[in-house]
């Protein structure tokens, strides 16, 4: 993966992580990877490993927090939760995303402009 695409992927992935944590609550890395894979309809067939740098970055930026806990199958796992700053960031990013998506959509839909 070229570094440009990696950047984009990291950005997109971060937004997906924040959104997933927002809807599902506390979750571990494996669960998040699984969930994102399902939600995206298996169209993002990437290595699960790529989620961990994204999680570390978000944690360093203070958008998510982590703590060790126990999974429903009684396995020890590191659980991530959204922080207040993370919720704000998600709202901001979502707005930004919708705006961008709207602009792009208008460009590609022939009838939209007049």
């Amino acid at each position: 993966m070229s570094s440009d695409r990696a950047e984009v992927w990291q950005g997109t992935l971060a937004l997906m992580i924040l959104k997933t944590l927002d809807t599902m609550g506390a979750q571990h890395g494996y669960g998040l990877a699984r969930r994102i894979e399902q939600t995206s309809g298996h169209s993002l067939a990437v290595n699960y490993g790529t989620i961990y740098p994204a999680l570390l970055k978000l944690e360093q930026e203070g958008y998510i927090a982590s703590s060790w806990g126990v999974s429903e199958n009684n396995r020890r796992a590191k659980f991530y939760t959204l922080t207040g700053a993370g919720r704000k960031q998600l709202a901001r990013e979502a707005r930004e995303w919708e705006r961008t998506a709207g602009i792009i959509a208008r460009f590609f839909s022939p009838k939209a402009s007049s």
Partner: protein
Amino acid sequence: MRTLRSWVLRLAGLFSPGRREDEIRQELESHLQLHIDDNVRAGMSPAEARREALLRLGGIESVKETQRDRSGVPLLQHLARDVRYAFRVLRRNPTFTAITVVTLALGIGANTSIFTLVNAVLLRPLPYSDPARLVMIWGTDPRTGGREMSVSYPDFEAWRDGTHSFEHVAAFTSRSVTLGGAELAELVPAVQTTSGFFRVLGMNALAGRLFADSDETSEAQPVAVLSDAAWKRQFGGRGDIIGTTITINQRPHVVIGIVPSEFHFIPTEVEQVYTLLPRETNREHGYLRVIARRRPNATMAAAQAELDVIATRTAAAFPRTHAGTGIALVSLEAAVGAPVRDGLLILLALVGAVLLIGCTNVANLLLARNASRQHELGLRISLGAGRARILQQLLTESLLLALAGGAAGLVMAPILTDALLAMLGSGVPLPRIEGVNIDRTVVLFTFGVSLAAGLVFGVVPAAVAAPSALQASARDASRTIAGTRAGQRTRATLVVVETAIALVLLAAGAMLTRSFLELRATAPGFVTGDVLAVGLRLPVSLAPGAQRETFFEELRRRIETLPGVRSAGFISSLPMAGGRDTLQFRLKDQPGAKPLSANFNIASPGYFKTLEIPIIAGREFSNADGASTNPVIVVNETAARRFWPGRAALGMEIAVSESTSTLKVIGVTGDVRQSDLGTAARPEIFLCALQPGPGWSTFALVVKARGEPMSLLPDVRASLRAVQRDVAISRVGTMEDVVAGRLAQPRAYTILLGAFAALALILAAVGLYGVISYSVTQRTREMGIRLALGSSPAALVRSILKTGTALTAAGIVIGLAGAYAVTQSIAKLLPGARGGDPLTLAGVAVLMLSVGSLASYLPARRAARVDPLAALRVE
């Protein structure tokens, strides 16, 4: 904000690598476990479940690596590792490391040393308050090329009173004074100023007060300010000195204050006594330097415009003396450094060139060493190190070497600086020399130069080594020729570059040496051997009229009767002692013409004989020329030719200034180099010391001895005491010392540049030797084959010599162009030096070529002695 937070966390992460590593490992293990559980639940076998989970995670080690980089600062971590590794590598090669560090230490130390001077003399602000606003104001005369001319008291008053751009304007001049009474008279450096002098500089008194305008009025008591040094030395630091009366030039002065001695104004001299200038109305007597402090809101341009108006007005009002003259403004900071700026900057550039050659040699060493590390570098690449990582590693080693060299250079610099100052001595008057020391600016400079040097010698070898290591790894790191070809080509280029730089330095050194030798061989126009010169300052009581003439006659009579004395005489401006007096005069047969100007000197009978200055026509002064006889003069050849072209000067008459009596030429003498050996003689007119004339009070007594001149000194002193007690003696020395003093500056530049050039030549030769030698070693096998196939050893030597000579020749051709330009700009440093002289350039080119051939002959001879069998067995 967020970025800052994450960087803080990452930097903090550097300090607990173990915990972080653990956390990553545990999280990935838990991830795998959860995935395996899911896979087993979906019906896979445990082994299959594990395999699939690992596959989907995407290489556990690479994930760990990414996490590690993200949670710390990889560049810093790599740097720390590289530095540790570089230390190990350098310690393992002590010879290489020592050679490199010593080369760099010498180069960087020399640069630091020269920069220490540049910093003290040119860069550091002057020790006055707000020095940027201080300016010097000079008279100019575009017709005669006069750029920094002293001006008269009325000129100074016009500038002071006619301008608004300045807060304060003051005039000053420096003349030694006799301090103390008859018995203890001592000649000390002194400054005569107008009352605003200390206000211009913004100085405060250590004790007492400084000059006030009321001290300048004619009815006021004469006052003096002492320097701290004078107060301590002459008056033992007495606490009650303020208010006491001391004798300066035989007149009582009241001491009103003391100024710190680090505030001093004449370069190289700590002035001891400050007195006030008497007001004068003569517009023809230019002897003052003017200094001023600009108002904060007045620009240089505005001040200059104001002065231009005054210049135009003055020229119109006094056309006889001021027609065509102008006024020039220059900042004090520029004025102080100006006399030595060019010299210092050229030295700095040249010593930089020496370092550049040193760097080229180190680069060559590194190239050779990196080539022998191909295997190691190849291995590291095979193990996954990127090209950038290899580059970073090699550069770290270079920078480490450079910093070690820089640190050693910084330690060496004070020693080199002391040696430099000792060599420059008093011959090169460096202003502000007392401030020469290593300060923060110098340390920063050294650090910067070290880093730059590290990059200069590190980048090329690293760039060559990294990709060739890549090739080497691809070819199983065997000793391939392709792997070293890039290196060989780079080494050759480096040798050409350093030969070119060395040639420039060599040409500069040769040019200076040549002009110095020429200068030393220049006949000064007088005979220096066995002549004692003693500086005298006559008291006011010995005014011209009767007393002065009697004094000269009586003292000369006494000295000439001393055993061991051939002859003696007096002169007002001793040749090459730095003094000069200029007067205006008219030719008697052209009374209406514009006044002419010449150097004027007062000489006594016996002067020309003592210095063996040839009399070309007429006669020299005799005791018969006196107050009662017609006033007579002697002129030098240049004056005779200039003022009476095509005619005999003998018998011609001139009139000085407004005086009515005329002076008759009774003799023409040979030319004497009056200011220095490199400057041609100017028109010179000698007045007779036994006749009435200007009231100058500084003279030199010259005595021709029958043996060692200095041994006459006690007798000469005794004779002086016997004739007149209150004459102060200043400089004492032989005439040879006086001339040598004038050669000190060219000698210093010559020695310095000669040393640079020698160093450059040696370094370039070593560089070439290294390259040829290395290529011979690399090609041992090829040599063996060629010898085995019947090539003669002589042919082999010739072919290697040809390579070496071609490299040297290429360097010489490039260097010659540079040498031509550089020698021309250096020639400005020295009177009489010529730049771009073809003979000198040809000479250094031949020298360089010979040294280059020798440097390649030695390894070539070694190659020819290779035993073919042994060579073939090497592989």
